[in-house]
Every structure is written in C-alpha cells, then in structure tokens.
C-alpha cells in the first residue's frame, strides 16, 4: 500500500516540529535566565551558547566527542521506551560498561575493539537485573534500576581500588584516585583516531561518533524492520495482547533491558577508551547516564532522531562551557530541563492534533454511513410522529 508512507512521515514530522518548538522555547527561557543572573553579559552569553560549537574545529571535535556517549545512553533509554520500559539505570550500566572496558584495556592490555565489546557485555550484564526483577517478581524497573545504579557505583569503585594495576599511580602518576591513562598503559586500547585528530586539530577527535551513529542505524532497523522489533513494540504497547499473540513478553522484557544496558555500556566504553578522560573513583553517579533521558525524549525515542538530538545536546553543552566565568555552565542543564518539560507536553500536543484530524475524518465516514442507513432511520422516526 502506498498510502502508508505519508501518515508515518506526518507523525515523525509533527514530532520533529514539536521538538524544535520545545528547543526554541527552552533557549528563550535560557536567555531569560541569563538576563536575570547577569544582565550585562546576557547577549554575549546566548550567542556563545548558540555559536561556540561551530566556532572552531576544536570545539566541533568536542561536540562530536561528547555526542557519542550521549547518543549511546540516549539510544539505551529510547530503545527501552519503545518496549514500554523506562530505563533510568543508564548510569549504572554506563559505569559497569566503562569498568569492563578499562579492565580489558588497562589491566589485560587488549585491543580497543575487544574493550568496546567488553563494555557492551558489562552494560548488558547490568541491564539484566531490572529486566529479570520485572519479569520474575514484578518489581517496577525504575526502582530496580535506581538501586542498581548505586550498587554498580560501589562495586566498581571497590573493585577498581583493589586492582593496583588498573590505577594511575601504577604507571607513575602521583594519584591513586583514578584509573590509569590509557595512552600510558596500553595505546592499542585507544579508539582509532585515523586522521581525524589532525583534521580537527583536536585530541578529542576519533571515530567514536561514527561508531555510535552506525549503532543508531542498526537499532533503527531492529526496531522498525524486524520480527524481533515487532514483538518488542507489541509488548510495549499492550503486554496482554502480546501474550495473547503467543509472544514471550517476560523474556522480551529481559532482552530489551539487556540491549538497553548494552547500549549504555558501550557509551561508557566509548567515552573512556578515547584516552582523554580517566575514570576517577568518586561517590557520584555519572551524569552521562541521566543525560540519555533528555536525548531520547527530544527525539521521541526514534533512533535516527537520537543522532540529531545527541548532537544538539552536546552542542549546547560545549556552548555552556564557554559561558564561564560570567555564568555557571549549569545554565545549560536548566535549558535542557526546560526542553524536557516542554517535550513532555508536546507529546500531548501531537496527540491532540492527531485526534482532531481523526475526528474530522470520522465525521465524514459517519455522514456516508448515515446516508446508507437513511431508509431505516426514517422508519425510526415514523412512530414518534404518530405519538405527537
């Protein structure tokens, strides 16, 4: 059927428009914040937010560098959301993924692709728990994920501090509170830069963004084109109906959380295998895991949209760093919060618009039906007139 295309395109397009609207309003709100907190620099500030990402090659490299892990955690949240699950456990999965990658890279001295694969397994492993708890014991996945974020953090910290060869001081650095610099410990574990670092003139630049983008396309194909995706979405939309159709919904919940976890895990691996950041042993959950949520929401969980939304979020974050010292860079988080809030409402706007369209259509259909049923309706009216 040829008719199919325009409808789905319309829905996606409406969603895109709603997201753009949310972004514009969010930025306006951010501008107001700039005026409130430091009126003298407000105009300079908003221009910095909007233009820094493109200002130099180095900044653009930073945008791409940050977008890759964001895209992964965004895909993680988005994938789970398509199956009707809310994955707030991105932080824990990201951490465990990073941990697996670092052990493989720093301690076991394995090459980067094996490290990345290990990070996927690590995230996958941590995603099993919310899935299993939900399908076996009917415990809400949000609560399990929150608990396992913390358990993951403590266990990773505990294990890392007890593996001396993983830490920076083992390779001659002064501090023991972070993992070793991969460049010093095992350069083969670094994600290849090909010639990109020279092109962009930035140490941040490597192929990680492209790896993430390819994964996004793969996820898109899985969700929209495969039997597995059909089953997963069926579970997400209506679990009872999926059981009725013979789909093993419980197993799919676990699978879905495992894949979501794997995606977050790759995010952790991709970030730390770049060589520019070392994992420092802290007591705070990494923000990257939570930042996947706005990335996914902004794209209505569409994997291809997530490529764009992660770029956007990364772009304004780079812009936000340029705001200091006149403003705290957290002003960007305020803008993002505002965009999430508005996008929560825009889902509604979409529904409203679709409903309006439907109502119009139904009216037409009904009119046609009535004409055909006209004869019988006349018969209905007859006795009533007699009574009068």
């Amino acid at each position: 059927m040829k008719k199919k295309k325009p409808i789905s395109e319309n829905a996606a397009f409406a969603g895109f428009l709603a997201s753009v609207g949310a972004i514009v309003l969010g930025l306006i709100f951010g501008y107001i914040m700039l005026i409130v907190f430091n009126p003298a620099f407000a105009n300079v500030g908003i221009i910095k937010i909007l233009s820094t990402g493109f200002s130099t090659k180095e900044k653009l490299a930073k945008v791409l560098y940050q977008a890759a892990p964001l895209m992964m955690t965004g895909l993680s949240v988005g994938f789970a959301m398509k199956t009707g699950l809310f994955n707030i456990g991105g932080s824990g999965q990201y951490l465990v993924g990073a941990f697996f990658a670092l052990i493989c890279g720093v301690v076991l001295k394995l090459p980067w692709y094996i490290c990345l694969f290990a990070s996927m397994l690590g995230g996958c492993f941590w995603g099993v728990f919310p899935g299993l708890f939900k399908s076996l014991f009917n415990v809400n996945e949000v609560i399990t994920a929150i608990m396992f974020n913390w358990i993951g953090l403590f266990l990773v910290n505990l294990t890392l501090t007890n593996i001396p060869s993983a830490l920076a001081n083992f390779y001659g650095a002064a501090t023991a509170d972070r993992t070793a610099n991969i460049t010093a410990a095992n350069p083969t574990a670094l994600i290849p830069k090909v010639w990109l670092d020279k092109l962009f003139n930035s140490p941040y630049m490597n192929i990680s963004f492209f790896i993430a983008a390819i994964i996004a396309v793969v996820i898109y194909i899985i969700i929209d084109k495969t039997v597995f995706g059909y089953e997963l979405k069926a579970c997400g939309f209506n679990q009872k109906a999926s059981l009725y159709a013979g789909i093993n919904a419980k197993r799919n919940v676990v699978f879905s959380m495992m894949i979501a976890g794997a995606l977050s895990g790759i995010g952790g691996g991709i970030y730390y295998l770049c060589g520019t950041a070392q994992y420092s042993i802290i007591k705070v959950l990494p923000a990257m895991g939570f930042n996947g949520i706005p990335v996914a929401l902004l794209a209505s969980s569409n994997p291809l949209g997530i490529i764009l939304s992660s770029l956007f979020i990364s772009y304004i974050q780079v812009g936000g760093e340029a705001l200091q010292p006149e403003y705290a860079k957290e002003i960007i988080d305020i803008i993002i919060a505002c965009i999430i809030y508005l996008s929560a409402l825009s889902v509604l706007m979409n529904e409203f618009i679709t409903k309006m369209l439907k109502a119009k259509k139904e009216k037409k259909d009904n009119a046609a039906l009535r004409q055909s049923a006209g004869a019988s309706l006349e018969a209905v009216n007859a006795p009533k007139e007699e009574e009068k």
Partner: protein
Amino acid sequence: MRIAADLLGSTILFGVPLLLVALGGMFAERSGVINLALEGIMIIGALAGCLFLRSANLGGWGVNSPQTAMFIAIIIAGVIGAVFSLLLSFAAINLKANQTIGGTALNQFAPAFAVVLTWAIQGQGQTSITIPTWVRITQANFGFAQSASPGFFENLIFKSFYLTTPIAFILLIASYVILYKTKLGLRLRSCGEHPQAAASVGISVYKMRYIGTTISGFLGGIGGLAFTVAAGSGFQSTVAGYGFLALAVMIFGNWKPLSIFGASMFFAFFKVISSYSGSIPFLPKFENITNSSYIYQCIPYVVTMLVLIFTSKRSQAPLAEGQPYDKGQR
C-alpha cells in the same frame, strides 16, 4: 554504649530526611500522581532553606534566636518545595503529560538552578552554602552545660540534634491522622484508587491530586533541608540520590505512614553502619580489601531489592497511580 548511642543518633538523623520525603511520595501517590521529582524538590527546598539560614547568619540575628531562624528556614524549605512541585502537578494533572518525564525534567532543573543561583549570589565558583553552626540544638538551649563525660542519652540526643527531627515526628503523626482520620484523607485516597468513583460523588479529582502533590512538595522540601543539615558539609546542590531512595522506602513501607517510618529507619541504619563499620567490633573488617566500606554501602540497596522481591506480590500500590484522570473519559 557510646557507639550504640552514636549509631542510634545517626540513624535517626539520616532517617528523618528519608521519612519526610517518603511520606511526601506517599501523599502524591495516594492521590494518584507518581512524584519522581522528589530529588529535585529536595534540592530546591534545601536551597531555599539554606539561603535563608545564610542571610540570617550574615544579618547577625540568627545567632541570637537560632531555633526561630531554623523554624522559619524549615517553613521556607517546605513552601518553596511545594511551589516547585506545582510544575509537576500542572504537567501531570492538567496536561496529563507523562509523569515520569515531568519528574525527570524537575530533577534535571533543580541541581542546575541551585548551582547557577549560588554562583550568582556568592560569586563565581562558590557553589556551596555553609550552614551556620548555631542551628544545632545543644544542651545550652535547655539551660544546662554539656557533661564532661556524656552518658548514653546525652550522646543520643545532643550529638546531632536539629529542629528538623522533632518536626519530622510531628509531621509523621500528622500524616497518619490526615490520611486516615479526616475527610481530606478519605477523599485523597479515593482519588488514588478509583478517581472515577470519586468524581461520581462530586469530588474534584484535580483538586485532590493538586493537594496530594503539594503536600508531597512541602514534605520533600523540608526533607531536603533535613538532609543538608544531617550531611554536615553545607549545601552542595545535591541530595545524593535520597529522593530516589525515599521512593524505594515508600514502596518498602507499602504506602503506609507507620510502615514508612520503620522502612526509613531500617534504611538509615544500614547507611550509618557502613560509615561506622571500622569502629563496630563485631562487624567483619575485610582486612585484605581496600575501601571495604563500599561493601557496607551496598547493603541497604541490596536489602531493599531482596525485600521488594518478597513484598511485590502483595504490594498495595494505589491502583490509579500514574494514570492521568480525564474528566470526559469514563
């Protein structure tokens, strides 16, 4: 005995914010709204309360009437938390938006806003607000001096005694009474279980849900301040995941005030044990392991998961929680 007093005192100290916030979560969910924004509400409440304490300190009058200042700070924390929660209510109740997403937005907003504001007020880079030392209630407040060698009760009560603690207990009792003994409580609960039934007898579901979420914001805000004074290192624009923990405590406590009290103390106890693990004689020391306190820090989370496994089957979650109420739909 000294250590027992310390353990118990700290348990209450850290249990109080959990208790307050979990009670807050309970009021929201009993009215039918899932309040995932508690973390953010805590931060905003603590921010407001701490800013007030700071100005009272700078103004010089705080030190003269410390508990009055603290009381006002508590009220401010609660009120600002309640106001902040209106953002969630509006999205969740009027606009029927996804409550999880709305809550996430508020959680994202709160710490960022706190950093930006404290930065703007205190100058660049200064993002932590110091809490004046006079907020702690000491023996002097009751007109006697600290003993040379304080006994069990003196240690238990005065080592870390803040006005938030007695107020939390009053609020616990008040929560129980409101929920079960008043018209408001009856109506609120009916909206969380069967909003259509409530509407059919003329109860405004929207109003009840607004009330539930606003109470939730009020308690959450106070809980944020209680957390900050308990943490002891000033306001750092974070509440270290306590808002989320409180949700687990609420589920653990089966949406009932007294059980929530038990659950929050249970949770706090394990939290406290992890930081005292080195000085408690009967606990294993894991001598070959560096930073073994991480093991103890895991315990409350692991225990919660185990408890949830056994309780989820007979969970008494409000039936209509998280479901937007549509006036037209019946």
